[in-house]
């Protein structure tokens, strides 16, 4: 408890130093408000932003896009990752493509996905899913491959059927690794959604941020970015919480292994 308080204090002190440095820099060098607004302007803009209904409507849309995309990615990632881990032939045949898709800069295919899925919600969901899918897929595949050889022996002695092996042992054993993939995935889904909204959208928090950029309301843009990062932080926290609920038996819960 004492350590936690100390960590909190150090964290807050760091924030205070950064804000103070920011303020001194802006004052001392007389920086233009269009380049770097002083912290109090950003704070005021933040206050206005969170009292604006359009902000919450935008946040709602963006959250739906991120979460829906993330869920889609989780389903696809776990299913494909399981297939690759369980069927050696598929693994050999498809893993080169999976790696090729993984190294492809996803930002580059955003325009393509927008052409295919339109300007609305569905294209953002698909883009978020594209970003989030690979770490979840890789986490699932790695988790299943790391199943304890002793557990394989146990299943063999008990003559477990294929679906029982996967459902009762392989997937539960892989859960910590899947959740690690999900922790990365939710962050990537957030990034993908915001980039997509910057590029082309008519609603969402990213879209609003881009509007403020166009209007050169740099202080509000700053505030919007802070809000976006807060949203990402909360979503990541939700997945971390999920780990506590789903794999309380695993050491990673106590360690609080961060993947960022």
């Amino acid at each position: 408890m004492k350590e936690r308080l100390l960590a909190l204090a150090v964290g807050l002190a760091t924030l205070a130093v950064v804000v103070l440095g920011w303020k001194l820099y802006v004052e001392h060098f007389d920086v233009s408000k269009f380049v770097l607004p002083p912290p109090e302007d950003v704070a005021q803009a933040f206050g206005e932003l969170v009292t604006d209904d359009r902000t919450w409507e935008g946040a709602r849309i963006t959250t739906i896009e991120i979460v829906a995309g993330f869920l889609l990615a989780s389903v696809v990632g776990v299913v494909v990752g399981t297939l690759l881990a369980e069927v050696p032939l598929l693994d050999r045949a498809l893993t080169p493509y999976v790696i090729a898709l993984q190294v492809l800069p996803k930002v580059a295919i955003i325009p393509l996905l927008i052409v295919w899925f339109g300007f609305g919600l569905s294209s953002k969901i698909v883009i978020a899913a594209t970003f989030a899918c690979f770490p979840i897929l890789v986490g699932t595949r790695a988790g299943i491959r790391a199943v304890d050889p002793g557990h394989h022996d146990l299943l063999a002695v008990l003559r477990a059927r294929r679906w029982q092996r996967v459902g009762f042992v392989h997937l539960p054993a892989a859960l910590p690794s899947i959740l690690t993939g999900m922790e990365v995935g939710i962050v990537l889904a957030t990034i993908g959604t915001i980039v997509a909204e910057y590029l082309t959208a008519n609603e969402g928090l990213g879209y609003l941020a881009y509007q403020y950029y166009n209007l050169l309301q740099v202080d509000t843009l700053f505030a919007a970015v802070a809000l976006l990062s807060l949203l990402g932080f909360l979503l990541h926290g939700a997945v971390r919480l999920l780990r506590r609920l789903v794999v309380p038996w695993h050491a990673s819960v106590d360690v609080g292994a961060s993947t960022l």
Partner: protein
Amino acid sequence: MLSLTGVEKRFGRRHDEVQALAPVDLVIDDDEIVALVGPSGCGKTTLLRILAGLTEPSAGTVHIDGHPLWEGGVVQRDAAREVALVFQEANLLPWLSVEANVAFPLRLRGVRRAERLARARELCAVTGIAGFERRRPSQLSIGMRQRAAIARGLIESPGVLLLDEPFAALDAILREAMNLELQRVWMERPTTCVVVTHSITEAVFLADRVVTLTPRPGRVAGITRVPFERPRPLEIEHTQKFQDLVLEVRSLLGGTA
């Protein structure tokens, strides 16, 4: 009855083949406890894995109550279900409670949850881990985990219980206690047991017959009959007769152990 006829095992391909197990013939009676001892690498674990249906023998046959265990390189499901194996490491599933681990084999057979957990609790009581049913394996000591593994091995009332150095990870004092416990469990639930161990004392204490294997390729060097009545107290290890039997097994092992 468990019978092995000419069971042998070779590993590797033709040019660098290793003979792990020379032809082994052995008949084990119902409710008999047989201990397998032998120097490291003599193939005793391989033999146990063949009996468990995990490793295919290169030649020979294994029959359980007259039914072949292996046929055309395939394990026969019905015969194999008569066999349970307790591993050196307990191999419990860390995300399940102790009772769910013990009940796991029944879950695979589609037994209803309430029924299988009731059976599991009954066996937890038999193996002396009552009160720990809801704990996770990581919350148990190594000895407790091994008890849970034995309970899981017994839950399907197997015709044959195989134990692969079940107490090797335990310290000497706990090991003696677990040997007594195993004897107690066996007296409560008699079943055919094959125990692989590298402790001659443990082998003589537990078994009706001690089968000594030679160095690789393992073949039966000799069979020592242990005539003591059960329950056997730990003090029996200090009697002259016990010491003679230990010496007999040791001489069968030669200078290799």
